[in-house]
């Protein structure tokens, strides 16, 4: 039986897409545990499998996608074994998701209020009038001004930031235990992004839900997350607390990422980019996925994928460099 301390536990999750040109292993053996009220950040470039991880938990993969092995435990229960009907109950009431583009995730031909009420009525036995009350309450909660009027408007009448608030209201309709946010602020301006991030932190404190934050923005990750998981080519490079990742990165990819973004320390210096181009998932190297772009690559990196190694109390990394360093240190000692 799994530890009930965690609201979500993912063990060795593999997800593949079966395309005409072959099997694409989008997620390749992922493990993590999520405590209630905590925020996990998943960071990576496009094609790193961060979104697919999120979609796998919700089981909203496209037709060709399938979880091939592993388990996703929600409070100790494996939801990959759920039937579609059980999943429908799970989605929305236990775990909700908000997407990057609030315009395409709202239906343009129904009013915002109607769509909110729909979500509420689906998961509770409220009637339309009660659902409307709840919808207004939710919009108030997420800081939409004048919700009584806004509820009758269509999504196109709302601004980008407000639409994202609508989406959050919808996601919170049934007070889920987990909120998955897939690049929730990428399409928004910085000032609006700050509003939305602040709102998510406030709601998390009030409602005590766990958040999985999927993003490519290291800035957003640094300000929001307790724990961070860095992904590359469908695998986890490194996971640990925010301080572990930012102040003691133990994977060459994470180190490279931190060198390549403009920060206070390198404002007047040249950025150090990661060479090469992101990986093609159809053509994965035998060893470490990052090996073709890694400056420190060794012989073993070409042939064998590194296993997850504990480098600190809360810090795990999959990079052979750590073994090499540990070996060298032991020789010196």
């Amino acid at each position, binding site marked *: 039986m799994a530890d009930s301390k965690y609201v979500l536990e993912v063990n060795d999750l593999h997800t593949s897409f079966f395309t005409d040109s072959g099997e694409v292993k989008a997620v390749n053996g992922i493990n993590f545990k999520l405590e209630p009220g905590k925020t996990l950040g998943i960071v990576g470039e496009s094609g790193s499998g961060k979104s697919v991880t999120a979609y796998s938990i919700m089981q909203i993969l496209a037709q060709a996608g399938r979880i091939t092995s592993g388990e996703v435990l929600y409070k100790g229960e494996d939801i990959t074994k759920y039937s579609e009907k059980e999943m429908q109950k799970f989605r929305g009431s236990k775990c909700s998701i908000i997407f990057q583009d609030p315009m395409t995730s709202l239906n343009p031909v129904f009013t915002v209020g109607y769509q909110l009420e729909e979500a509420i009525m689906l998961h509770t036995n409220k009637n339309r009038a009660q659902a409307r009350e709840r919808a207004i309450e939710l919009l108030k909660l997420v800081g939409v001004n004048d919700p009584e009027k806004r509820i009758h408007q269509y999504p196109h009448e709302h601004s980008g930031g407000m639409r994202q608030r609508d989406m959050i209201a919808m996601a919170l309709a049934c007070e889920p235990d987990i909120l998955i946010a897939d690049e929730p602020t990428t399409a928004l301006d*910085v000032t609006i992004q700050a509003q939305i991030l*602040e709102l998510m932190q406030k709601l998390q404190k009030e409602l005590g839900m766990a958040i999985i934050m999927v993003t490519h923005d290291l800035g957003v990750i640094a300000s929001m997350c307790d724990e961070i998981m860095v992904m590359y080519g469908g695998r986890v490079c490194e996971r640990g607390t925010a301080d572990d990742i930012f102040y003691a990165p133990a994977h060459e990819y994470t180190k490279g990422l931190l060198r390549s973004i403009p*920060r206070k320390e390198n404002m007047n210096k040249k950025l150090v980019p990661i*060479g090469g181009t992101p990986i093609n998932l159809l053509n994965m190297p035998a060893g470490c996925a990052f090996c073709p772009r890694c400056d420190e690559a060794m012989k073993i990196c070409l042939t064998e994928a590194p296993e997850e190694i504990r480098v600190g109390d809360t810090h795990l990394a999959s990079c052979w460099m750590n073994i090499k360093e540990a070996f060298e240190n032991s020789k010196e000692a």
Partner: protein
Amino acid sequence: MSEEKYLLEVEHLKQYFPVKEGFRKVPLKAVDDISFAIKPGETLGLVGESGCGKTTVGRTLLRLYQPTAGRIVFDGEVLFDSEKKIDVDMHPFRKQMQMVFQDPYSSLDPRMTVEDIIGEPLDVHKLYSSKGERRDKILSLMETVGLNAEHAMRYAHEFSGGQRQRIGIARALAVDPKFIVCDEPVSALDVSIQAQVVNMFEEIQEKLGVAYLFIAHDLLVVHHISDRIAVMYLGHIMEIADADDLNNNPVHPYTLSLLSAVPIPDPETARNSKRIILEGDVPSPLKMPSGCPFRTRCKYATEQCAREMPPLTDRGDRHFVACWNK
């Protein structure tokens, strides 16, 4: 007039677009009375939220739009002056002013090979005497932006986003310009690729001495690449100063909140810093507030702000601010 020689001077530039509202046509003031100057080899960063008119500024400078009013001087020659009714033919100047677009996917013709994409500006301005010379020029341009010569016969779709942006940059460099408008050139790229392209912009500038107008919404990238930064809000420049000065001592309340809203990739700073959250959204440019456009979201707003737009005044060290209260 100052003694310093500027490559590009813009004075009181206005760009209005007519928008139908019922039966009436009302002007949408995309750019409303802005002035700035860029020195040769300098990078001016232009930041602001979407809809503030930063892209319009870039396009108006290159005269992809017909300016409504104002004056544009490039390299000592007046390109446009609404008062003196000067409006020159842009064709010869396009050799000196170029543009790199945001989306590397839609800004390259899918039916042309890389060689033809980069070669087209050479064709238009007849910059070669023989086919061999054309090819040599194209290959050397490809080398400048870090593309292999064997890629010349490929089509745009065969490249990744970062490589496509390199093709776009090579095309802009083909005519040996003095000034390039970079309209969000790294926004569509992955983090690890962004640094490659930012570095390339800096290297090209060191080598060729081109000046950039670098338009972007990512303030950290803009800070890194720019010498000076201008902050725009609803068609007006609110503050313009040296990059470090603007970041260390922002004066305008809008700049302040914009900078505080940027998520800093550093957990320690993130824990300790306080975001200044702006209330509400940017007003519609069709229903612009009277006076200072920022006053509806500004906590210092007074009556004077509602009456009059504050002028851009020098606060020392070429740090210009448009605010009555600060």
